[in-house]
Structures are given as C-alpha cells and as structure tokens.
C-alpha cells in the first residue's frame, strides 16, 4: 500500500531506493520487448510514412503547417483539452478533499462513485450522454421547467467537454486523493494554532501541499484528452472536429497515410513539448519550496 501511494504521489517524498531495481531489473524485460514491438515499431513506421508517402520529403509537414484547417484543428484540440482539464480539476478538487475527511465507509462509497462509471464501456457512457444532452433530452427538459429554455448541448464543444470531463474525472480524482490523504492534518491545526483562520490555513498550507496531485492529475487528463476520438465524434459536431478525427479523415477517407502520420507526429511532438514544459515548471516550483 505504501509503495502504491509512493508511485501515485511524488508528495509523500521518497523516490525508490537506488539499486533496488538492480537484482530484479530483468523482470522488466518482457514488458520492454512488448513495448518495443507494439509501440516503438508502429511509431517508427508512422514517422517513416510521414516523410516517405506519397513522395519522400517533408511535403506532409509543410501541408500541415500551411493548412488553416489543420492548424485550427490542432488549436481546437489543445483548447478543448485545457478546458476539460480545468473542469475536471474544479469538480475533482472538492470531491477528493471530501474523500479525505469522511469516514471509512463513506470513503468507499465515494470511491465507488468515481470508479463505477470508469468500469463502464466508453461507448455506453457516451451514448448515455447523447440521450441526456439531446435537444429533447432530460437535461433540456429540466432546464425547460426552470425557464432556461432549451440549450443546444449536443453537437457543440460544450457537449464534448461535458462528456470528456466525466470520462476523465477518475484520472483527476485519484492522484488528488492520493496526495491529499498523505498531507499531515496537524499542519493545518498548527497553522490555526499560530492564528491563521481556517480558510487561510487551507489556502496557504493545504493547497500548496496538494499541488503535486494537481500537477499529476492535470497532466494525465490533458494528455489523455488530446487523443480522444469516440466522445468528440459522438457528442461533438463534424464541424468541430478534433485532431484525432482529422487523422481518421486522412487515413481512412483519403488513404493519405503520410498526412495522417504527419498529423500524429505533430500531436506527439506538441505533447512532448508540453510535458517538458510542465516538468521544468514543476522543478522550478519544487526548488523554490525547498527540501521537505
């Protein structure tokens, strides 16, 4: 259990002891082979296709960076990802906090509530949202009774964000909970003992200590959201396509595997750059916070 929490939360401190992996390192071999065959080889093929089909050269990339539509789609994908990350964070933070303050039984229920939908097929959940969000659906009927007129939710970016946020919430709640449950409550008591009001103690002591969980959750949600296909395809509109849908167009509709590959490589590169940036930011903030 400790080990699990350590993996999930950088906040509880220790990195694995050096040399611990030495003797048992060979156990990694099967998964490394699997990763090489099933991940690196296809990735290499994708990169290769992007520079060799239909003719060798960088034509696919110059197409991407001169196409208004391709660039707009990339920006839209990043924007939707950022909004989804923000929405899941706002919803998950109080939820995860609640999980740390309630009793053991209630915590089990709260955990189940997050995990149950997580164990349900993505397609089923997305179709459920289609039913709920359509113009004549339950949500709009409720909105109608309180006089908020029917809103167009489905086939809009709003619908996509709602669906994706629900799907991705566990990825935010769990890291947050892992970090929050490791925070020593007595620090809050101490702050209040020193004269801080509860709200100030929470904001100045608890929130900074929970930031590693926010970082881990936000990163997971954001990066996962970039590759979403089913949810935007069903809840969104074809005229609000995300990059995964555009890749599908190139690969499946036009058999332009080179362009599809180039779009994949660009998405991967953007993701890696963002990951790197977040890494830098995290290191800077941790450095400022000093050693714990």
């Amino acid at each position: 259990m400790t080990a699990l929490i350590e993996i999930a939360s950088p906040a509880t401190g220790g990195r694995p002891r050096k040399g611990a992996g030495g003797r048992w390192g060979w156990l990694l071999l099967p998964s490394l082979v699997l990763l090489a065959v099933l991940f690196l080889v296809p990735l290499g093929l994708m990169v290769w296709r992007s520079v060799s089909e239909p003719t060798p050269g960088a034509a696919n990339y110059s197409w991407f960076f001169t196409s208004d539509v391709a660039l707009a789609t990339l920006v839209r994908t990043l924007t939707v990802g950022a909004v989804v990350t923000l929405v899941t964070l706002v919803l998950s933070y109080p939820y995860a906090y609640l999980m740390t303050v309630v009793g053991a039984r209630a915590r089990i229920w709260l955990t189940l509530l997050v995990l149950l939908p997580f164990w349900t097929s993505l397609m089923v959940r997305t179709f459920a949202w289609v039913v709920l969000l359509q113009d004549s659906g339950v949500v709009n009927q409720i909105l109608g009774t309180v006089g908020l007129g029917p809103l167009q939710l489905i086939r809009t970016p709003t619908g996509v964000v709602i669906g994706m946020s629900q799907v991705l919430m566990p990825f935010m709640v769990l890291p947050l909970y892992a970090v929050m449950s490791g925070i020593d409550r007595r620090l809050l008591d101490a702050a209040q003992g020193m004269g801080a009001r509860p709200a100030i103690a929470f904001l100045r002591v608890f929130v900074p200590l929970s930031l590693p969980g926010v970082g881990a959750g936000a990163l997971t949600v954001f990066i996962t959201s970039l590759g979403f296909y089913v949810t935007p395809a069903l809840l969104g509109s074809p005229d609000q396509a995300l990059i995964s849908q555009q890749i599908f167009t190139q690969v499946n509709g036009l058999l332009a595997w080179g362009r599809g590959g180039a779009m994949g490589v660009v998405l991967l590169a953007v993701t890696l750059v963002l990951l790197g940036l977040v890494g830098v930011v995290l290191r800077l903030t941790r450095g400022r916070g000093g050693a714990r």
Partner: protein
Amino acid sequence: MGCAAAAGALLLTITGCAGTGPAAADVDLGPGPAVAGQVKKGALDGVTLTFTSYGGIYQDGQEAAAVKPFASESGAKVLSDGPTDYTKVKAQVDAKNVTWDVVDADTLWAKRQCGKMFMPLDKDIVDTSKLPKGTEDKCSVPAMSYGVVLMYDKKKFGDNPPKDWADFLDTKKYPGKRAIPGFASDAAPGALEAALISDGVAPDKLYPLDVDRALKKLTSVRSSLVFWDTGARSQQLLESGEVSMAMVWSGRAYSAVKNGAHFAPQWNQFLPVSDSLAVPVGARNPKAAMALINYYLGAAQQTKLTELTSYSPINTDAKPKLDTLATQYLTTTPERQAQALQVDNDWWAKNQEQVIQKWSDWLAR
C-alpha cells in the same frame, strides 16, 4: 484452414500458413456461361473464403440470403468479417497478404479503387445480365440499392410539403433545422447536389459539380444545418423531432417512421445510392470469390435480402413480399426510378478525393 484469419501477419510469415484450399486454377465452376444465383454443387469443396461487410441487420441479411446457402451448395467454407474498413483493405493489398475475399464497400470507393485495391470481375463467372442498366462496373457490382431522400416533418409542413431540394434549403419558406450527412472523412452525392439545385442549377446540368459554389450556398444556411455521421444518429434526429427536415438514407427513414417519427418522404429528386461487392487485388482464390458474388446476385437471394433488410433488390427479377410501409421505401420500382436525380457516379469516383478534402475542410472551418 482459417489460420490466416486467426493468426497475425507475424505468425503467418513464420508458419507459412499452408493449405488454404485448391489454387485458383483448380476451381472448376462447370461448363457454360454463369447464371446469377447458381453455383455448381460441391465445386468449392475445401475452399475457404472470407466475406466482409458492415455488420448489423444488413450483414445478417446478406448471410442468411446468400452467403450461407452459397456455402452449403458450393461446399466452400465462408467466414465473416467486418466492418469494412478501407485502411484494412489497403493494408492487406499492400502487404500482399489478403484475407478478405469479397468486400462490401461504398460504390464510389469501389469504382475509385478499381485496378488499385480491387481486381476486374470475370464476366464469365459473374452474370450481370439481371442488374439494372448502368449499375455494374469493371471491378464491382451493386450489393443492394437505397436512396438519399428528403424527409419532412408532417406536423409542420403537412399542408404544404417541400417539393424538391430547393425547398429543402429554403429556410425562409420552411423554417427549422435541417439534418444533412456530415461525414468528415467521406463525401458522397447528396448535400452538394441539393445546394446547387437550391442555388438555381438545373438538375440535369449539375455535373461537373461546382463544389465551391455548393459550399458557398451551404455556408449561407449553415446555422440551420445539423450534421449526422452515423445512420443511427440520423434516425435518432428524426425520432426525437430535433429537425424539421432531413436528408437521410431511405432505410433509416423507413426505420424511423416505423418507430413512430412524424415524418414523410418527398421522393422527387431522391439520389439513388448503393454498396458494391468487389474482390481485392491479390485475393487467394479470385474465381471462388467471384462465384460467391455471382450467387449473391440471384433473384431468389435478392428477394430474401430485401425482405430481411428493407434495402432494395438489384436483380430486376426479384419480387420481395413486404408490408405496405416497407413497399413505400423501395427505390428500384419504375415509378421511383423516374423520380430519381441522375447522379454521375463516374464524376464522383474521379473527383471524390478532392471533394472529400474540400468538404472536410469546410466542415472543420
């Protein structure tokens, strides 16, 4: 047998996958010209074929009407796969490891890929004499027929129904949302033709399509458009009443009305469409695959297919027994054919790639 279907490409190269039945030359389909719907008894003993289509009631119907009877008569073992996926066809043909023998694909795509992904059909094996004129192609034959049809809300426009595609896009005369196909990765006859007709082009002067003009027209009514990109979604739009008119596939229109949607069809200017059957280049046993296609085209098979799926038969001798509602949605009767808009499939096949690029760009804008 069937090891090719089960094993991955990696395993195949290792095991070689021997014993997939007699080589193409060994198949004896009997003397004389082929007759649609017939196959020599036991001619394909020991041969394994894979039939690929789009699944659901459609493929169930195809299997019950043609594929299974073919297997029991010819002795061939026929496996099923699906859904049809163009990238998978390309991957198989490129890798020279073709496991799909007969593929049900979009007619335009089959036309476009003739000689590239699909091989020419041997007309000594495939009897096309009972097909409606102009529907066969060098590499493919139609698998069934349906239509892109205008559906309108009977409650709203019952007294003054829209007469043609010009009315369909006339949002002043007929207020409300319009559902149109919005496949980002595909473009097919329908929305562009409707836009041009609505913009004043005569139905017989549509081709070559002025795609830019059509898109400009669609842009002007874009706020009233709702895009659907699965058949289920189009049906749901009719049943939930979210739109007041829709451009949908006739089969889905029929299902929606059967489920109680308050919509009626305007058949004037409907666009006939179809799927096609084709054999990928490099199929292991093309003769056997074509024998299956020939069997599929028989009148009895087509009759049964229509009764099971509500798609229209493509054998002119087929006489399906249907309930009154389903009969109203047959697209191949002479009176319907007279109402059809003449679609230039050759133009579409030649230009579809550019149209898809423009269309998906327009959609994503």
